[in-house]
């Protein structure tokens, strides 16, 4: 009995791994072809590279102003994660401590924001940012993302803060620890797993977003990665060797993040969905 189970386990393992590799085959083909010279690529897409080259990468980086675009994306994403986390934590901490009916009121007001699709506000947002001359500013983008995503941040933080015992804060108060210090030095470290989870999701949502930056940013030098890739595809649609090199470069940061924070991505995504 034990033996058959073991054998079945190995067979099933191999089947699942093979299926998994077939599943990501489009990505593997993309990466593999990005190292081939153009003529080799178009003669046979399925062959392994015989003349390994980085020329596609060199040219893609130069033509797309890749470094700058990458830094733009990094600035907006980093800013959103930091600002989004701070404002979400502050507000959630406040809401969790307000003992009158105001607490639930603010909680519901923020929570409902999660059901509003971005597409229903994009027209208004575009009109308003144009009117107040806020287009083409990466910092404005950070504010908008933080404002849009804090609905989820607050929702998640409040859920977690409810389980933190109040005695801790009362003890700190008796010891003469001020309100702000209690929040930052005693409670904030306690919610670290939640912060990482929310932070990882903010990262993914911002880094991968296309619509908001494509509406708000018209200036070439301020484009984010997704928008730049999109523009490059429309302008140079036949240069597939360059495009796949750029696509590979854009996927790398996300894959690295996934390897580093696999545990938090998984738990964040599950927690985010399950709590609904």
């Amino acid at each position, binding site marked *: 009995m034990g033996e058959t189970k073991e054998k079945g386990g190995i067979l*099933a393992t191999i089947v699942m791994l093979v299926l998994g590799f077939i599943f990501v085959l489009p990505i593997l083909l993309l990466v593999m072809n990005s190292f081939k010279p153009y003529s080799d690529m178009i003669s046979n897409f399925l062959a392994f590279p015989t003349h390994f080259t980085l020329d596609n990468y060199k040219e893609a980086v130069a033509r797309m102003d890749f470094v700058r675009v990458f830094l733009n994306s990094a600035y907006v994403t980093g800013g959103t994660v930091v600002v989004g986390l701070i404002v979400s934590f502050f507000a959630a901490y406040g809401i969790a*401590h307000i003992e009158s009916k105001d607490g639930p009121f603010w909680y519901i007001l923020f929570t409902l924001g999660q059901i*509003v699709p971005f597409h229903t506000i994009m*027209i208004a947002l575009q009109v308003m940012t144009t009117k107040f001359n806020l287009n083409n500013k990466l910092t404005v983008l950070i504010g908008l993302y933080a404002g*849009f995503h804090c609905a989820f941040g607050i929702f998640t933080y409040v859920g977690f803060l409810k389980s933190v015992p109040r005695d801790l804060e009362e003890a700190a108060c008796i010891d003469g620890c001020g309100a702000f210090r209690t929040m930052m030095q005693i409670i904030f470290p306690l919610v670290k797993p939640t912060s990482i989870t929310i932070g990882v999701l903010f990262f993914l949502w911002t880094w*991968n977003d296309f619509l908001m930056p494509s509406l708000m940013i018209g200036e070439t030098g301020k484009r984010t990665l997704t928008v730049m890739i999109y523009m490059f595809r429309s302008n140079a649609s036949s240069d597939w060797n360059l495009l*796949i090199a750029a696509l590979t470069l854009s996927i790398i940061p996300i894959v690295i993040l996934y390897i580093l924070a696999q545990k938090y991505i998984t738990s964040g*995504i599950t927690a985010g969905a399950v709590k609904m």
Partner: protein
Amino acid sequence: MSILFQKRRKFYYALIVPALLLYAGALLIPLFGGTIPYSFLNWNLMSGKKSMAGLENYVKLFSDSGFHTSFFFNLKLGVFTIIGSNLVSFVLAYFLNKNIRAKGLSRALFFIPNIISAVLVAFIWTFIFSQILPNLAETMHWDWLGSISWFGSPGTATFTIILVSVWQQIGFLMMIYTAGLQTIPIDLIEAGKIDGCTGLRLIRDIQLPLLMPTITINLFVSISGAFKAFDVPNAMTAGGPYGTTMPVAMDIYKEAFVKYNMGYGAAKSVVLFLVVAIVTLIQLNFTRKREVSY
């Protein structure tokens, strides 16, 4: 009321202010001060015309065949994507939950497409469909494959968009099904087996009913996700051929930023919002009723 609250009341209220300012600027004001009031205006940004329209925009929606096309395309995309991605991801989660090795690696492989930007995902598949498959057909002399125009007809274009959407969503749904399957107590399954309940019956009569909360979540996520479809069709087919693969969100985009009809676009946005809200509520209500407890 605790002493701590009385003492620090102002502090707690002040903490909400930064988030509230950003939230108001990014969501509340655009929604209530923009989208909703605009939807009652007859407003074209190009001609500069701006006048009260009352319910005119909403009435117009009933006879707008372009909007109907995109609405039904969206429905079709939603239904097929939801069924396809939920079926595959459940089967994967089911087998990945069994006694196998290298679970982490297998899960990671199925999950990776989910964390890549939808625009990039669309281009990866465009590369496959427009470059690799025709090349393969040529070298292997598979004329049937070479003759398929993946983005050329409404049918094939819809198929590719559904395929790519399913591919991207599987990883996410699989994770949630996995989490759900792990919450089912082992002794319940063992008890079922002792009573002679095995194989598919075990799945149907024991695991699926206990998974109802998870299924609720996944249907909710995929339905609201379907109505937010934009990036994949936009990057793969740009709505073509002839606007047959244009989801509602993209139709709104075109109305406002290509035709500059801000008022009419806003009315479409309100409808999208209502549809998402209503579908979600009905669905939550429906699956919640079928949930069982043990």
